[in-house]
């Protein structure tokens, strides 16, 4: 069996790009949402978490409508920047962003909510700006939860299949991430090839969750006596 490692590289590429975006946007949005109360907040929050409960095909379908040749955003991107989303790696990144966003968002909300508000108040009375108190107090204390969100989003991005297939399709060498490669290997009866990628992705998944568990246990111990 010849080993073509493109699916691994593509999967990593997709996961790295999507997780970077999801981490920053998810963190900022979570910070905003934990501090503000406004009309329609709960509706917006439910909408943000929707990809978690919808079948990936539905998410993919929605993205196709939005980013397709005649879709609102698809047209816009094409006309202004010459970017095509459907059947490209960009499509895979977008699919990955949408499905992994809820994981980052939820972790970040939980992480920010766990930071004692009084610490922020204390920093304010000492003259710290909102920006400074975020980076010196809130971020370091929320870091374990933020990192958990980061790792989960990364793992989810790595394994994204349904929405990716609908938006980016299966173009060998261009959009065949590991999960997509597995599906088409099985379809065409190449069980050995499928098995190879299954082993790789299980190992990656095990590695991340194992590391995350170990790391958060270590952190819990570190923070245990600090009350």
């Amino acid at each position: 069996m010849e080993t073509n490692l493109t699916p691994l590289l593509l999967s990593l590429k997709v996961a790295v790009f999507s997780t970077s975006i999801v981490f920053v946007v998810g963190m900022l949005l979570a910070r905003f949402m934990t501090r503000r109360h406004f009309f329609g907040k709960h509706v917006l929050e439910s909408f943000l978490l929707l990809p978690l409960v919808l079948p990936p095909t539905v998410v993919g379908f929605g993205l196709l409508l939005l980013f397709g040749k005649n879709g609102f955003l698809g047209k816009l991107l094409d006309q202004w920047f010459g970017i095509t989303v459907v059947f490209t790696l960009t499509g895979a990144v977008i699919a990955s962003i949408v499905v992994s966003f809820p994981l980052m968002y939820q972790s970040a909300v939980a992480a920010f909510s766990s930071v004692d508000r009084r610490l922020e108040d204390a920093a304010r009375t000492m003259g710290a700006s909102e920006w400074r108190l975020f980076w010196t107090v809130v971020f370091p204390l929320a870091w374990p939860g933020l990192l958990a969100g980061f790792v989960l989003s990364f793992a989810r991005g790595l394994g994204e299949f349904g929405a990716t297939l609908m938006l980016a399709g299966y173009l060998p060498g261009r959009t065949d991430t590991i999960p997509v490669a597995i599906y088409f290997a099985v379809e065409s009866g190449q069980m050995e090839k499928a098995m190879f990628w299954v082993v790789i992705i299980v190992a990656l998944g095990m590695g991340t969750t194992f590391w995350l568990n170990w790391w958060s246990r270590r952190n819990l111990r570190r923070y245990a006596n600090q009350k």
Partner: protein
Amino acid sequence: MLTVSIQKQLPDFLLDVCFTIQREIVVLFGPSGSGKTTILNSIAGLVTPDAGEIRLGETLFYKQGSKPLPVQQRNIGYVFQDYALFPHMTVAQNIRYGVKRQGNEVALDELVATVGIDHLLEKYPHQISGGQKQRVALVRALATKPDLLLLDEPLSALDADTRRECQDELLRLQAAWKIPFLMVTHDREEAERLANVILTMEDGRLVGDNRSVRNLVTK
């Protein structure tokens, strides 16, 4: 001189107080849930009253109808009930957090030495005792050279002996710093030991006044 005259609707009652304090220790005394902490938070700018005015000397902190002065610009020190020390910073980092750029370092070293926490600078909050945390919180609040110090039940978590030591410490510091100390407690003995003036609160109103501070607007 601090002038406070505010109203704020709380879940169970209307907070409605009016008092002035000089460079002295004033104790807000009363049962839990009588609105004492809300007063401190209003002065600090962490809570906005519904109506009235708060003024420290020439500086207007709050006036009904205009934008309140941001917390960061009020230059007050605040010692929180459970100290609110930053758990991920050492004692030294905690203390220096609010120090402005100009070299206040000498005065700070002196303060650290007076209060007797100079051997703790490299420790983290979870490694020191309650009484030591209390002193660190006090030094941290004073390190910004505030014009007013607010203390919310600062000694309630301490055992009797430590408590007494810290009370003496507060008296000494107030004598040295000569700024108004406004302190909340529900311990009568403590109030009597520390206060130049005791303002007694009940359900959001001032009910007694142990010195001749004018008694107050009650609508």
